[in-house]
């Protein structure tokens, strides 16, 4: 193109990876429009942009999953073609995807060595692989159980498995697509440390995150995208959170939630002695937990991932069974033995933890997903036949109201939507359904700051309209910001109750780590 490039291709390129003029078009949308990205060796380069801005797409191009319509990729100044992930791997490029690509029925170890299995005379020699994995896991503090099946482990551990997978392959260029979205604050701090360490060792890191403080903490530079276009690249040292978010959203963003004092009313959800058996351990995952959620309040269950929150919510919503003796009442009615459909139609809305496993039918279109629990209602069906026109109208309304961005509007396959917009679709569906109780597990996972702001507002207005909200979040900022009452869950028990105005993050941290517990809380009555 110009003389610079000729010099660069002569060998001394300052960039280990350079993507030039990348354009990627999907049906109905230009996901990447002439984007340039320059990654220096040994730097941590953040990629920032709203949901659907095209970050994952750009990284998928680099990883060989998509072929761009236009543009070139250079490694150390030399032009390369990356046709598939194998090519990427050969060039030392590794990627942790936004939605993990693990084989559910394999163990953690098998997943890590999948594709690069060590063999001797054609036989698997897992012993060395195992040692290497354990060594890596120790060095980087990535705690995993190599023999656990992936389907049995928490999302956090799946994430760590993905990271280990990359480290195991000794990749030089590491792409992290929203790695922290599912990690606990402690784990995030650790990961930040790991990333810095890796960068110091000379590895170059591309890091996608919606959390600006993380970017401020670890990144050296940051490239901002907006609606598929390249906005600019800045040195982190010369910028701040406000400027970054304005660059990304195009307007000012408020980070605190404005909300009035809560006015708790009748009890909408009451849980008594809820016990859930653990997966593999003898210990109960949830051990005799009792709590009440009233109308007009937001109750948050805080805790470190894996302390029984998921099992607790699954039992309340009916996705898994709870033990004999547990009682769940919804609006004063015992619904312990009732079906999920019954709870759904009697005031329970549920934003699930795993949007791909539970929240969406990925092979359905956006509009079909927006009526996932309502397709049979009078409004959307007639004599057993679906009223497609009504669904379309309804979808159009939700898409506009919740700003769900996609290539083809209501008929977009859910699978092709960006992660954040998939989440927005679920939130729209659950908030718009008539509900007295909203159960929200990590509702803002993977959303950009602008979207978080508006979702928080909507949750608060759902509360003000008289719904009770049971929130599970690993995000302490969110917990402190949004809730009216905080319960800490540790090892399947509630170990403390707090008023967010009268406590601190540090205090909560002690309870979450199990270092402290309030007397009389969470002791299982009976046995």
């Amino acid at each position, binding site marked *: 193109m110009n003389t610079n490039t000729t010099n660069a291709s002569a060998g001394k390129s300052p960039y280990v990876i350079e993507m030039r003029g990348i354009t990627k078009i999907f049906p109905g949308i230009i996901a990447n429009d002439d984007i340039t990205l320059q990654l220096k060796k040994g730097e941590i380069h953040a990629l920032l942009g709203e949901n659907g801005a095209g970050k994952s797409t750009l990284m998928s191009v680099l990883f060989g999953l998509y072929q761009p319509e236009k543009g070139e990729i250079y490694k150390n100044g030399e032009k390369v073609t990356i046709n598939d992930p194998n090519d990427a791997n050969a060039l030392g490029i590794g990627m942790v995807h936004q939605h993990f690509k693990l084989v559910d029925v394999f163990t953690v170890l098998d997943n890590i060595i999948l594709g690069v299995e060590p063999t001797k005379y054609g036989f698997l020699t897992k012993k060395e692989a195992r040692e290497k994995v354990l060594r890596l896991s120790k060095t980087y503090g990535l705690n995993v159980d190599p023999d656990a099946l992936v389907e049995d482990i928490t999302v956090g551990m799946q994430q760590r498995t993905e990271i280990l997978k990359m480290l195991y392959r000794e990749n030089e260029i590491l792409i992290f697509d929203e790695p922290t979205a599912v990690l606990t604050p402690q784990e995030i701090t650790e990961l930040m440390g790991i990333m810095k360490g890796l960068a110091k060792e000379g590895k170059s890191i591309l890091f996608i995150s919606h959390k600006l403080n993380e970017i401020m903490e670890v990144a050296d530079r940051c490239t901002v995208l907006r609606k598929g276009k390249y906005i600019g690249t800045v040195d982190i040292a010369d910028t701040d959170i406000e400027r970054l978010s304005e660059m990304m959203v195009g307007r000012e963003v408020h980070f605190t939630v404005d909300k009035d004092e809560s006015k708790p009313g009748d009890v909408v959800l009451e849980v008594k002695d809820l016990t859930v058996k653990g997966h593999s351990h003898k210990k109960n995952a949830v051990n005799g937990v009792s709590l009440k959620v009233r109308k007009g309040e937001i109750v948050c269950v805080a805790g470190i991932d894996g302390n029984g929150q998921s099992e607790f919510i699954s039992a309340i919503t009916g996705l898994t069974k709870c033990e004999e003796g547990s009682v769940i009442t919804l609006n004063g009615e015992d619904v312990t033995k009732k079906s999920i459909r019954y709870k759904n139609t009697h005031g329970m809305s549920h934003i699930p933890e795993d949007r791909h496993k539970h929240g969406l*039918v990925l092979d359905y279109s956006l509009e079909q997903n927006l009526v*996932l629990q309502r397709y049979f209602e009078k409004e959307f069906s007639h004599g057993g036949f*679906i009223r497609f026109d009504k669904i379309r109208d309804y979808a159009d309304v939700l898409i506009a109201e919740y700003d769900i961005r996609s290539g083809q509007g209501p008929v977009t396959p859910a699978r092709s939507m960006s992660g954040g917009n998939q989440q927005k679709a679920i939130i729209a569906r659950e908030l718009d359904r008539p509900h007295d109780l909203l159960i929200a597990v990590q509702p803002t996972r993977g959303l950009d700051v602008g979207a978080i702001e508006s979702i928080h507002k909507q949750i608060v207005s759902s509360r003000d309209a008289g719904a009770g909200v049971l929130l599970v979040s690993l995000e302490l900022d969110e917990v402190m910001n949004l809730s009216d009452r905080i319960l800490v869950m540790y090892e399947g028990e509630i170990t403390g109750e707090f008023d967010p105005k009268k406590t601190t993050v540090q205090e909560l941290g002690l309870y979450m780590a199990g270092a402290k517990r309030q007397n009389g809380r969470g002791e299982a009555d009976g046995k």
Partner: protein
Amino acid sequence: MENKKTFGEKCAAFVRKDGVRSVIASLISILGGIAVGFIVLLLLAAFDSDVTFSQALKGILIVIKGPFSSGSADNMLFQIGNMLFEAAPLVMTGLSVAIAFKTGLFNIGAPGQYLMGAMGALVVALSLPTDTIPSWIVWILALLAGTLLGAVWGAIPGFFKAHFNVNEVIVCIMTNWIAANVVSWVFLDTDFINTPETKINFIKKTSSNGVATAKLGLDKIFEGSYMDISLIIASLVAIALYIMMNKTTFGYELKACGFNRNASKYAGMNEKRNILISMSIAGALAACGAALWVLNGSQDFKWNTYMSLPAEGFNGIPAALLASNNPIGVIFSSLFLKFLNKGGANLSAQTPFNEYVSQLIVAVIIYFSGFSKLFRDMLAKKLKGNEKRDGDSLKAKGGKKE
């Protein structure tokens, strides 16, 4: 240049459509099958001194032309009639497999369901007195009996899958062989067995009791063939299923359950019930196909089935695969398979080749159709590859100019 490009883009957009891509993938499977069949004929010609290469070429043309290569016009009509009649049971087993697929289940139990359906229909059609009950009522009852028995038979793997998460393939295979033995056992030493010494392996034709599917003069058009209205019935069922799967809340649930069982559970759908119902419908369909076949009135049903399973049941799998599980598509894929079948018969009649070659071609098509999804993906990739190669060659040209 620009025009060409937009045309190319149009083509690409056209091919990107899911339906179009499925059809193309099916065509590739078919062409692949035919190509391999041709190679086999050529090889035979090369190694067998009785056969010449020109015969190989003639042979493949005979197969491709199906019933149209039958020689005389009369013979052709006869073969077409039989092709249409024989397609009906295949449409039904194809639908059976397709519906289960849509719910995320692999119904390899169609052969067993088919046997149960044949048995149910035969027993009712042969034992109800047609002098007191009008024969068309007996016909309907027989069809219903066969269908119901199949529904029950299909429900068994469905039940185990739904409530104990036992893989349906395993239970299906077991129920297949149980059906094979049950049917033999039920008919053993009964009056249902045909009497002439040469016919004791067969059950009496239902026409012996005056029960037979209406022909509406179709057998006159296709002189001498078995043709009756069963293909019309099967097509109506296919259309009904298409509507059920795509337009009703029930179909919405079944597909959701097939795509993502966890999400359908989360959404409050009764996924256990759906699995059970889906397998029952699948069983009913396969059985109904068998009932249509035996109720034709002129068909011999081999009753001592305990050592073999009916091919028609298994052939539902390629019929469904070739149609990408689209109910309407199953009508056409079934017709096509039967079309080749007739070509194969003509091949052995008119050339030194035997009919197994046509079966081989069908088998290869079936094999290829199993890869039709792969073809679909390859097609998508190929398009991209083309685009890129175009770009590269342009650049190469530019380079030369410099």
